[in-house]
């Protein structure tokens, strides 16, 4: 198990909180809520150790399209980068719904 944290600049406030996914095999859950400051913060807990660089790449990519000041908690049970992006996008979709 490994814990990682990332911070990204944000440009707009996040109005509500959303939860998607499950900490099941090859999957993850995302808890997204308003950030306490003006930045976006991501706290990752993952069952797979040694993939900090991959997480950074995935999140860099996500934050090129998402500018919300969100506090995002990710609890991961071995999801692939594709599934991580899918869940994050699903969370954003739920946020805008």
């Amino acid at each position: 198990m490994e814990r990682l944290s990332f911070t990204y600049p944000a440009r707009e406030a996040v109005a509500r909180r959303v939860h998607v996914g499950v900490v099941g095999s090859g999957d993850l859950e995302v808890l997204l809520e308003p950030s306490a400051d003006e930045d976006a913060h991501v706290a990752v807990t993952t069952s797979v150790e040694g993939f900090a660089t991959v997480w950074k790449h995935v999140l860099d990519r996500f934050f090129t399209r998402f500018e919300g000041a969100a506090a995002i908690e990710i609890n991961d049970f071995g999801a692939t980068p594709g599934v991580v992006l899918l869940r994050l996008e699903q969370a954003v979709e739920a946020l805008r719904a």
Partner: protein
Amino acid sequence: MSTAGERQRFLARPSFIELDARERACAILDPGTFRELAGPFDRLKSPWLPLQGVVAQADDGVVIARGSIEGRSAVVASIEGAYQGGSIGEVSGAKLAGALELALRDCQLGRPVRPVLLLETGGVRLQEANLGLAAIAEVHAAIVALRRHVPVVAVVAGLVGCFGGMSLAAALCSRLIVTRAARLGMNGPEVIEQEAGLAELDAGDRALIWSLMGGEQRVATGFADVLVEDDAEAIAAEVRRAFASPAGPPRSEQVETLIARLAGIDGEHPPEPAALRTLWAREA
């Protein structure tokens, strides 16, 4: 499927099994009444899993939802089978027991609450062993006490099934609804194979497993009340029906009947599952 129309309806029906725990609770409650308690943002996580290097889920795999069923106050406890096999740890077990205890309190105060358990669990979470087992004993205690005030309705839909101490919880309920995909048993097939050997039970033999503990067999031999299709609307309708019709005496109280029907069984060579159906043909 005999006609194209039936086939189309079969394909169009909303699966219950494919829903996650939250969606299942939603499907049981009256539309628009779902309100989650101690949800993911309350972050009541397992204190024990991270100590053993296991990632914890924010709701510990149990969704507790208040709402109504046919306009009457209700609580649904729904287990997420995809997280740790639906296993019962300290937090998830306390959510189940705590919700039932509050429903009991309300019933005692003259405010009936309709309790529904959506069971999808392998039993005690091994990483939280004694606290999971203790919580299951508290779930048992709460069901027995609550059942005196209001029917306690359980659904085992699949795909995990319902095992371990939670299979006893299912058997304590006033009404038990299952699908063909459900399995209900005290010991999971893998555990039996490991403990007693392949000659006792081949856990990989799906047909054998379902013939012993599948939903259809359990209804046919009187261990469950209703067999439903994997259809969210049909399952919700059966739950409503369970509260609408008066429940008979719970099967776990039928001790002398159970002893009498077991007395005729050869302990070394019991009947095959199909023969047991005939022998224990369910009384209508």
